[in-house]
């Protein structure tokens, strides 16, 4: 559904961020991309979002080449990036301003309900906590009904409790329309909780080092024995075993 065909990216400075990335993400699949900072995982997402252009190769969504922001693709950034001058409801409605008022309001209400913040519709973004703001950012992206949603370390700025909460919420939201999710994270546990496949990247230049398939059914219990084993297996594949033990 979302495919990367021999994608490479070299910045004007000469730094090569991505080299020959090939990856196909299926319809309704959840793929997590993990790797150390500087491995090009965020660059990969920016290319898919159409915010930057690839230096080589192609990115397609349903066969359609992505050269600029594509209507089928939404993105949630690491920071909420809400519009401070719009209320919560207006923020969520931002991308559907062209719809008739009644449709718009109905969709905003559903989106706010979905992230559990229906009673915050008339607040200003400044009055929200970090977790609430990120939920609104999620609602703002989902209200446009993207077929694929890109998430760039969306929960990394949140505390552990809020993060786990939002991961569960993301899965609940995903279950509704089942958009394809491509999630960049540096949190291995997050990747294991959410993803069908985990793509491991290595830096200099950014390449795909391994792809882990996770068969376990969701929701996955972070405390279950199988989850621990999964995590151990992932750490071993990532080559993090020794430093983790040390």
């Amino acid at each position: 559904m979302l495919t990367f065909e021999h994608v490479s990216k070299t910045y004007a400075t000469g730094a090569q961020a991505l080299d020959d990335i090939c990856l196909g993400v299926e319809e309704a699949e959840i793929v997590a991309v993990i790797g150390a900072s500087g491995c090009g995982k965020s660059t990969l997402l920016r290319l898919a979002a159409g915010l930057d252009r690839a230096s080589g190769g192609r990115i397609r969504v349903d066969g359609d080449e992505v050269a600029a922001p594509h209507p089928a693709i939404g993105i949630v950034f690491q920071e909420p990036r809400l519009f401070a001058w719009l209320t919560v409801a207006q923020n969520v409605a931002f991308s559907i301003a062209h719809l008739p008022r009644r449709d718009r309001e109905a969709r905003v209400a559903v989106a706010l309900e979905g992230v559990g913040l229906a009673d915050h519709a008339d607040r200003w973004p400044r009055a929200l906590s970090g977790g609430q703001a990120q939920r609104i950012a999620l609602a703002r992206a989902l209200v446009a009904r993207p077929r694929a949603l890109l998430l760039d370390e969306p929960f990394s700025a949140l505390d552990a409790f809020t993060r786990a909460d939002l991961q569960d919420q993301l899965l609940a939201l995903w279950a509704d329309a089942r958009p394809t999710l491509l999630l960049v994270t540096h949190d291995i546990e997050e990747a294991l909780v959410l993803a069908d496949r985990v793509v491991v990247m290595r830096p200099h230049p950014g390449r795909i080092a391994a792809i882990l398939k996770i068969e376990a059914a969701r929701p996955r219990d972070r405390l279950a024995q199988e989850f621990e084993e999964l995590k151990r297996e992932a750490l071993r594949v990532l080559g993090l075993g020794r430093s983790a033990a040390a």
Partner: protein
Amino acid sequence: MSEARLLAAGETIEAPVRRPARGSLRPLLLGFLLPVGAAILWEIAVRTGLAQGRLAPPPSKIAATLSELAANGDLWLHARATLARVAAGFALGVLAGALAGASRVARALLDPTLQGLRAIPSIAWAPLFILWLGIFETSKVALIAVGVALPIYLGTLGAILAVDRKIIEVGRSFRLSGFALARRILLPAVLPHYVIALRSGLGLGWMFVVAAEFMGASEGLGYLLVDAQQLGKPAQMIAAILVFAVLGKTTDALLVAAVAPFLRWQDTMANTEA
């Protein structure tokens, strides 16, 4: 010492709720104490003969002059002339300043020149403007416009450069570009800074109108000042200065009130952070 610190900490916690209800009136009254008290003391000093009050007339005399000027229509005539000049100069200055600051091409073309011209005190243009544009309205409005345009240009420029690129990226990800991006994201993001630029521009407009009217005018509050100086009427001078103060403050308040609905989100910001 430690007790005082504890109290202070307790107060900051409760402050957001209690401050608007209780604390707002007393500082206001305190603020009035100095000017009103001084005026009353001066009035008493002159009445009791302690001071002559010839060069610094007492408040009652200034009030009498003001009501006299108001009664014979002079006050309105002069205030109107001055207001018209400020309005015309401000409008021209805002237009020129905003256009030059908002367009990238205009910025590249004009910025070096404007940064150079910025070093010249705008009043220094006055003789040249009179030579070029004549002694009447044109030169006065031009002088005010120049004075207003520069801070607005710089303010617009600064505001646009200060817009968070990350917010613009959100707009791009929703496939906004060009005019739609400017209207829905750039403009509201720039507005708070822009209003500050407008207010300082307006303040300078009032400053320059005085200079312009000193250069030779047959009406206007500045003319009223020069006239009073030549005829030795200090009460009229102070009356004119007071009218300047009232008009300056009023126009500023009108400007703030006009944009307040668009900046409501900032109020909440101040409230939640207080």
